[in-house]
């Protein structure tokens, strides 16, 4: 993985997985959500069953720079978390 790239992790419908290919770390949130949507529709995220009706509207996109113990940037697409 290049220094400007990141691993994209997606959580959808009680399943989660990483996109097989890295994405640019500075990609726009709208683009990231679109890529995640298309990947889920096409069944290309290991761990997430293909879902033609996926809707990531309202999901958060979070970006985390590489840290000790994780040598690559990480981008997370996740549901809202209103409960505690």
């Amino acid at each position, binding site marked *: 993985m290049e220094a400007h790239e990141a691993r994209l992790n997606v959580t959808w419908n009680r399943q989660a997985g990483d996109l097989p290919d890295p994405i640019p770390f500075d990609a726009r949130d709208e683009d990231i959500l679109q890529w995640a949507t298309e990947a889920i529709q096409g069944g290309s995220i290991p761990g997430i069953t293909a879902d033609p009706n996926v809707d990531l509207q309202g999901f958060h996109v979070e970006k985390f720079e590489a840290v000790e113990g994780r040598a690559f940037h*990480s981008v997370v697409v*996740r549901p809202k*978390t*209103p*409960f505690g």
Partner: protein
Amino acid sequence: MKITIVGVGALGSHLVQFLRNLDAEIKVIDFDRIEQKNVMSQFHAKNVVGKLKAQALQQSMSFLFGTKLTAIGNKLTSDNVRELLAGSDLVIDCLDNAESRRVIHKFVKAEDIPCLHGALAADGNFGVVAWDDFVIDDTVTGAATCEDGEHLPFIGLAATCLARAAQEFVASGARHGYRITPRGVIGT
């Protein structure tokens, strides 16, 4: 070290038991009462249904482990936030109420008090343990699906990450966060 935990429902109640060996004075705040359905997913037992969560947890921790807690059975609002949180070295927000989360967020920021947030998705399958990068999501109407007990192991995992973040902060001042997915934990 004085730690104040606001909200001792799903995440907060389990967090308290995981912090029982920490060298800290712990205060818990929650105005809610224990319902039968809470027993399925929270660290509250059948025999305390109907009691205030804060007081019940105080009694359980003392009875089971000899751990002393201070318990406050009030709702945290902008009117009493100073009274309830001032003097804390660490505040841990485990609420399911966006309005009160915002009150906490505003106060700790103004007073420069470290604050750790714990939060769960409505379907009980995503967890957040965050410091300054926490995004407050508006309260959802209806009950959390995690109340049926199906997600208890996941809640336990998220509470463990929350406890670990607090433990790391107490030990070294480090502010580590976590994102808990259905397939693993991502350190942030």
